[in-house]
């Protein structure tokens, strides 16, 4: 019934070629960086720059990173603020989302609008800095966790997801004598697992990539997580101008640090990508 003429076939080929180009545009920069981090300096000099497929490999840069206390310390801080931050975030988000998803809760609309306003009225960093200082968080690891503990966007995703669950489930539990807390813990949250996964992942990626918060609120560099430390390493030296304390050339070190810091995300990413896509749509449909 449907004709597949030459025009269609050419169209298909063009589409698939463009898609291949698209995939390469996303992939090649990442590959080039990975390649640069394992290329011996002699190769870099010989080719006059980074090559995609070096003939020789060396893991010197990674070995050096491993024994670089500042980097390892930053890694630990990042893991800490990501783990603790995500747990606390999920706890608080779930505790708020369940009551806000109950349409019979008096005052629900008012509370919701009070929360949503904060998404669109942004007082800027100076009043934020002032409150972080007033609450005594400056120069503590909690300055990278508490001020951004709840994401209103994520909260709204969970609220709308909980609202889509059939209310009969909740009703029958209530008839059996379960209180609100038990209903939340034993029925609502287990059913909302897909949404909780998504917001947990989104939040933990945000924490892992946290850059501005430590920079603003934590002058003590020993407490810095990976991102600001890497930024300093990227900025500190001009490429090709070797740092006398390091035996590996700067550019190789720089590329190794960014690979090192992104590996956890890129390793987990393919397995969770589907959830992300779903979660974004949850948010979008709500919006």
């Amino acid at each position: 019934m449907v004709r597949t003429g030459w025009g269609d076939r050419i169209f298909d080929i063009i589409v698939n070629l463009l898609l291949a180009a698209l995939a390469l545009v996303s992939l090649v920069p990442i590959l080039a960086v990975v390649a640069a981090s394992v290329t011996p300096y002699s190769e870099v000099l010989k080719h006059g720059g980074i090559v995609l497929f070096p003939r020789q490999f060396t893991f010197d840069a990674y070995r050096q990173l491993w024994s670089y206390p500042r980097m390892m310390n930053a890694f630990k801080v990042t893991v800490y603020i990501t783990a603790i931050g995500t747990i606390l975030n999920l706890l608080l988000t779930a505790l708020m989302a369940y009551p806000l998803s109950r349409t019979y809760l008096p005052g629900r609309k008012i509370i919701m609008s009070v929360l949503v306003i904060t998404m669109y009225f942004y007082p800027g960093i100076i009043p934020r800095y002032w409150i972080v200082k007033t609450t005594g968080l400056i120069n503590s690891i909690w300055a990278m966790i508490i001020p951004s503990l709840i994401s209103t966007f994520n909260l709204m995703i969970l609220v709308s997801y909980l609202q889509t669950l059939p209310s009969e489930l909740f009703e029958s539990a209530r008839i059996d004598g379960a209180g609100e807390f038990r209903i939340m813990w034993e029925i609502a949250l287990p059913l909302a697992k897909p949404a909780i996964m998504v917001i947990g992942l989104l939040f933990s990626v945000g924490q892992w990539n946290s850059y501005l918060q430590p920079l603003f609120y934590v002058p003590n560099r020993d407490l810095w997580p990976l991102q600001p430390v890497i930024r300093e390493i990227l900025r500190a030296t001009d490429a090709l101008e070797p740092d006398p304390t390091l035996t590996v050339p700067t550019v190789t070190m720089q590329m190794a640090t960014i690979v090192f810091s992104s590996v956890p995300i890129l390793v987990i990413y393919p397995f969770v990508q589907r959830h992300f896509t779903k979660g974004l749509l949850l948010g979008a449909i709500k919006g």
Partner: protein
Amino acid sequence: MTVAEKSIEAKATAVKRVVGLIWHHRTLYLMLLPGIAWYVVYNYFPMYGLSIAFKDFKIGLGIAGSEWATPIYANFQRLFSSPRFPIVIRNTVLISLYRIGYGTLASLLIALLLNETRHYWYRRIVQTLNFAPFFLSWVVVYGIFLGLFSQQTGFISRWVRQFGGTMPPLLQSVSHFRSVLIGSAVWKNAGYGAVIYLAAMSGLDPSLYEAARVDGASRLQLIWHITLPGIRGIIILLLILNIGSLLMAGFEQVFVFYNVRVYDVADIIDTWIYRMGLERLDFTVSTAMGLFRAAIGSLMMIGANALAKHWGEGSSLW
């Protein structure tokens, strides 16, 4: 009973009813309590902190202890008469507009291509790769940029040199810096932006396509006459909402990428507030800028929402 007594009694029963209702739902309110407390401290107290904009603020005296500025709008006078002010506003708006324009085009194109391929596995691989940069931090994207475009060692710079050209110092160049910002933002976020368009496309009625095919429409005609009109609502909605946040030009990215040499084209509201406030410790003028942005920004957001309600085919933000 007099009228007064009656009304007092009515009030009393009303209060009793409200207290009773709250008591009845006490578990739910208790659950909300920690979160609400957090919102009050970290989102609503800063709004009080905005009053610094109207004060002759002295750090030692705190906000309440500091005198009001004379005249009360003195800090705004200082802000508006600053020679940097028009430059910063222009940069913010320009960077935002470019970002919205190119970002939307790229996401749409990606979604259209993904939607057109018939091989599901191929589509999934491309989408996975294309979506990945979204999860990298701006610092890492900056590092990748150096790996590609750094003059001496960059991967792409090497190719340019081999073909006899020279790579300009992109990050230091006033004429290239904005393109660097937009290009890297598109690279990082376009795949993410495509997800929503793609979902909207997959929701279109397949019988429309079949009917058009029977009538002899080509694939390009299908895109032009069915796919694009079908997702027009969501395109307009997202565009309007993006325009609503025009004064947010991507603080973190600009902050990671910029340097003194490109301040004239790269300095945006947030970077200026940061330098004035946290580096030079001029809290009053930087808070005034923050308040100015918050006021204009929320007006624009309200306007955008009204527009979205009007044109976005029924969907809006609140």
